[in-house]
């Protein structure tokens, strides 16, 4: 499947928010304590809310009878345009926290730039989402510091999580084909200046958390173009099961 760049871009942003929202929702009922269970579920709802605006927009751009539900539940893994970071499995609480922090920090600067998009619809979605993301970043930063600078055990787990997740952060700053086409027109965010801003914020929080930036040079990418890690397939199998078994089912 290949949509025009504008639609691919909306789907990319929608998929990012939806897949991480779904991942976080997997914690609902399993959080380490009641208060954090609710906190992460709130963040899941924020992200799924963001994805709905973006899917609705993409559906309007596609036209015909496409709906947000068809886009969320009717596409296969290779149609998804989310970055690899958000689809990684939850692991332990530390890995979930770190994934949220790395992505929220990116989303924070990203939406800050998308505010100036020539596409007024995307700019409006960015404005609404930025308030939510500002809190996600604050919440996850506090937790990274708490766990990184916590006990020997929590520090070791954060280092292990960093080891597992870091290689998926490079992709966040490498534009896909549809992004390059749209950033010339002032619609998509130019990702190049985002890198140093993101890195600065991550370094700041890591310093307080007694964690050091890995110097691994190799970065895995492809998610934005539909080449995913094995984890996405399992996630979609569960998330899309009902609609694939009973298409159009409502309750």
């Amino acid at each position, binding site marked *: 499947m290949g949509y025009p760049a504008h639609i691919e871009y909306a789907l990319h942003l929608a998929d990012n928010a939806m897949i991480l929202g779904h991942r976080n929702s997997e914690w609902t009922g399993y*959080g380490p304590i*009641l208060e*954090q269970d609710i*906190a992460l579920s*709130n963040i899941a709802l924020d992200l799924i809310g963001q994805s709905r605006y973006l899917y609705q927009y993409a559906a309007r751009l596609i036209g015909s009878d496409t709906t947000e539900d068809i886009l969320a539940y009717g596409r296969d893994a290779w149609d998804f345009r989310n970055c690899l970071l958000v689809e990684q499995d939850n692991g332990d609480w530390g890995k979930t926290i770190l994934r949220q922090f790395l992505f929220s920090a990116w989303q924070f600067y990203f939406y800050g730039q998308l505010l100036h998009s020539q596409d007024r619809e995307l700019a409006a979605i960015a404005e609404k989402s930025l308030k939510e993301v500002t809190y996600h970043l*604050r*919440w996850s930063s*506090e937790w990274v510091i*708490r766990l990184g600078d916590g006990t020997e055990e929590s520090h070791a787990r954060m280092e292990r999580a960093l080891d597992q997740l870091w290689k998926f952060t490079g992709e966040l700053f490498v534009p896909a084909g549809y992004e390059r086409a749209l950033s010339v027109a002032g619609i998509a965010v130019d990702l190049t200046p985002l890198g140093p801003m993101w890195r600065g914020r991550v370094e700041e929080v890591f310093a307080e958390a007694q964690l050091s930036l890995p110097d691994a040079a190799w970065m895995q990418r492809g998610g934005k173009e539909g080449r995913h890690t094995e984890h996405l397939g399992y996630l979609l199998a569960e998330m899309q099961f009902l609609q694939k078994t009973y298409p159009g089912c409502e309750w």
Partner: protein
Amino acid sequence: MHDGQWPLWEVFIRSKQGLDHKHAGSLHAADAAMAIENARDVYTRRMEGVSIWVVESKYIHASNPDEASSLYDPANDKVYRHPTFYDLPDELKHM
């Protein structure tokens, strides 16, 4: 889910229209910063408030229910403590 190590906090929320913080409930948190974040997530998800206070429950001192009769009953027959014996002019509203 909770192993009982984190202290209990009392949460007070001020609503948008409210002038004072009202007791909303309690929760567990490792420190004050986390208590405020938890309170935000647990007690303001339905737009209940615009300001949060938290205090560790151990710092709240309460009156003894067993002493209720000696503390509160004596006020029962002191109607003259209520300012209800004044004749108010009709023009005066909201008193």
